[in-house]
Each structure stands twice: as C-alpha cells, then as structure tokens.
C-alpha cells in the first residue's frame, strides 16, 4: 500500500522544487536559450535568403553583361561595315573623279593641240605665201629665160627655204 500512497512531504517538496525550476529556469534559462536558438535560426535563414538573392543578382548581372557585350559586338560589326562601305565609296568616288580629271586634261590637251595646229597651219600658210612671193620675185628677176631655168630657180628657191 505504501507504494501507491502519496506522502504529503514528498508532494510538498516536489511541488516546491518543480515550481522553482519552472520559474527560475523559465526566466534565466529557457527563454534566453530558446531566444538564442531562434535568433540563430533566423540569422541562418536570413543568410540563406541573402545568398540566394546575391546569386540571383549575380545571374541578372551576368545576363545584363552578356546583353551589353552582345550589343557592343553588334555595334562594332555595324561600325566596321559602315567604315568598309565608306572606304569603298571614297575609293570609287576618287576613281571616278580621277577619270573625269584625266579626261578633262586629255580634252584640254587635244583642244590645245588643235589650236596650236591651226595656228601652225595659219603660220605655214603665211610662210608659204611669203615664200611664194619670194620665189615669184626671184623668178621674175631671172627674167624667166627658159623654162628649165625657171624650174631650176624654183628648185633652188625651194631648197633655200628653211621651215624653221
């Protein structure tokens, strides 16, 4: 019967001890311990979240870098193409111009030659006329004795003429 009969003393001391444990440990042990554990869990949770966020950020950054690089590459290609086009254009323009210039020069030279030729012809005509006059004068002065003589005179006169 002793086994199943609770004694007053033990009930009293157990109650007292357990209430002391609950109140003192509750105040000085359980709440700081639970708070610390919770704080640590929150910190870890936060750290994981921020790491996740950083990863996401990195991924975004990399994406934007890639996009930027792609854009730059495209820009460069465009610029290169433009430059090439410009070069070709300049070259072709220069060629055309040079051709025109050359043609102009040739035309001008031809004109000059023609002018000079005309001038020379006029001069020659004058000279021929002059010579003719001289020859005629000489012929006349030889009194036109024989036809042989005449022709000799003409020949002589002609040989005397110098086309300078």
């Amino acid at each position, binding site marked *: 019967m*002793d*086994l*199943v*009969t*609770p*004694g*007053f*003393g*033990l*009930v*009293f*001391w*157990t*109650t007292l*001890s*357990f209430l*002391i*444990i*609950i109140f*003192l*440990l*509750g105040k*000085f*042990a*359980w*709440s*700081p*311990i*639970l*708070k*610390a*554990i919770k*704080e*640590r869990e929150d*910190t870890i949770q936060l750290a994981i979240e921020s790491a996740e966020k950083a990863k996401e950020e990195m991924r975004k950054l990399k994406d934007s870098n890639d996009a930027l690089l792609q854009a730059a590459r495209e820009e460069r290609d465009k610029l290169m193409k433009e430059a090439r086009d410009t070069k070709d254009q300049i070259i072709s323009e220069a060629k055309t111009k040079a051709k025109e210039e050359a043609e102009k020069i040739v035309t001008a030279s031809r004109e000059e030659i023609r002018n000079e030729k005309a001038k020379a012809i006029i001069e020659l005509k004058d000279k021929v006329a002059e010579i003719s006059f001289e020859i005629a004068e000489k012929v006349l002065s030889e009194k036109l004795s024989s036809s042989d003589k005449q022709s000799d005179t003409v020949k002589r006169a002609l040989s005397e003429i110098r086309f300078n």
Partner: protein
Amino acid sequence: MLEFRGFKSKIQRIFFVLIVQLFVVSAGFASDHNDSTSVSEGFNAGEMIMHHVLDANEIHIFDGLSFPLPILLYTANGFDVFSYGQFLDAHHHPTLDYTSPSTGNTYRSNHGHLVQLNESGEEIAHSGWGVNDHSFVDFSITKNVVGIFIVLIVMFLVFLSSAKAYSKGIGRTSAPKGVQSFLEPMILFIRDEVARPSIGKKYERFMPFLLSIFFFIWIGNILGLIPFIGGLNITGNIAVTLVLATLTFIVTIFSGNKGFWMHIVQPPGVPAWLLPIMWPIEIIGVISKPIVLTLRLFANITAGHIIILSFTGLIFIFYNSSGAGVAYGVSVGSVLFSVFMLSLELLVAFLQAYVFTLLSAIYFGQAVEDHH
C-alpha cells in the same frame, strides 16, 4: 528520434558503462542485504525490493555507510526537527524511540513508518495529510527529496551555464559547444517534434513547462538508474508523478479556451437529451488524463526497478536454497538479464520523459485549439 553521431561507438560505450555499473550495482545490493537481513535470517526478496523502491529517511549507500536525513514534522504540538540518526542504535538499526524536547512528543520508526507514541508506548498518531490528534504532517527531507534537490541542482548548473553561454553569443552567432551541443538537440526535439506539432502556433508559452517537465523526469529517471547513490527512485514514486501530472492538469485547465470548455459542456453532434449522460463522461475524460499520466510514469519506472532488483534477488534466493555454487551459476544469467534490463531502462528513462511531455503537450494543444 535523436541523431547520434558515431552510433556504433556510442552504443559500445554505453554497454561498457552499463556492464561496469551492473557489477557495482550487484556488489551494492549484495552488501546491502547482507546487512539488513543477514543470511542466517533468510533472504526476503520482496522486503529487499520494497526497501529500495520505497522512500526512506536515510540514504543507504552500503552496509556501514548510510546518511541519516533530517526529519521535519508538523504536529498538533508544533514543529519537530531532528535527525533520523536519533532512532539508530549501535548497530545502525532504527530501534530507538526519540522524544522531542520542544514538543514532548515521542516518535518511533516502525518499519520505516514514523509513528507518534503515548507515554505507555502505544501508537497514537502517524503521518497523514492533516494535523490532528491522530495525524501529523511529515515534511521530512527523505531520500527522494534529496534526489529531487539533486535533479534541481543538476538542472540549474547545466541550463544556467548553457544559457549564459548562449547570452554570450556562443550558439547564437556561432555553433554551440560543450554541454550546449548535447542539450540543444533535446531542446529542439521538444520544440519541433513535441510542442509545435501537438500545440500549434501557440506552443511558445508552454515551452518552459514542457522543457522543465521533460528534463526533470529524464534526469530523475537516470538518477534512479545510477547505483551507489542510495537507490533513488524519484520518478517511481507516486507522489512525484502525481504532482507532475497535477501541474499538467492545472496548466491545461487554466489555458483552456472557450472552445475547450464548450466541447465539454456541449459536445458537437450530441442531441440535447444525451447531454446529462455526456457530462459525467466528459468530466471523467478530463480527470482521467492526469491519473493516467501519474500511473504510467510511476508504474513504468517502479516496474523497471523491481525487475532489475528481482534479477539480483534471484542470486541470493538460490544462495539460501541451494548453496554458493548454484548461486554463482544463477548470477551469470542474472547479470546478463540485468544488463539487458538496464539498457532497456536507459531507453525507458528517455521514453517515459518523452511520453509524459508529449501527452502534456497534446492536452495543452486540445485546451488552446481553435474550434471553428
């Protein structure tokens, strides 16, 4: 339930400790009853077992070394404080009577029971729950009270030091270390596996109670398994389990919300004419919970102690009946069974603390549940 790293080596270590303990226990028991009941008088296994399981006014380490504990009595004539040693004769047997000089009461230890005598040596009063001519209240610091104080001191040392470490930042901003690493899984176990699933989001206010009751029972159970400290049987005493269960009951009742009470007064789906029958059933349901808690813990721990003691007692029963040779033979089997039982009791020590805490949490959960 618990994660143990290096499980294998830990098990081996536990077994080693248990085996060492067992020999110590056996030696302790052997010397013990050689003392109290000498072999010539015959060995009474029941008496030996009850002597170890029941509370006592002395801590009996082994023969020749026992500590008499203070006796505090509140009688009709006032308080009496004296040592149990006053009852002991030259052979350390409690055969003497003690008369208090302050109240004039005379006391005797009658087979471990304190009784008050009149002038002619007749018993006139014994310890009880009230103070009158036939009863006095016994506040004695018995061996289980000492055990409870040891539990209290151990809990204070361990948890206050670990709380201090936490508030210093160890375990909060860094990994826990030392005793924290051992306690934290338990605390988290109670919080995440017991309180949170059973109670729900209001679990936080019950955590101090649940943690206190879990560690109180667990440490108390383990203390009961340690030999050579006087055979403490704290959680195997019905007074202790009654108090713990009653506290759970009181907390449940005081945290019960409207839904909880309405469920008792007017169970849903019950026709009105059945209510008068339902009320007593509901009330029994509420009251039976702490009774079940009380009996389960008490019976489990006491049964464990009785079984281990019985195996040891077998050796001496055979010694008395068949001689030393047979007793040596029986001791091999007894020791093996005791090793097995002690290992089991280590598990039971944790398990019963867990079950008590879990059931308390479930009752709290029912009390604060949101009824829709």
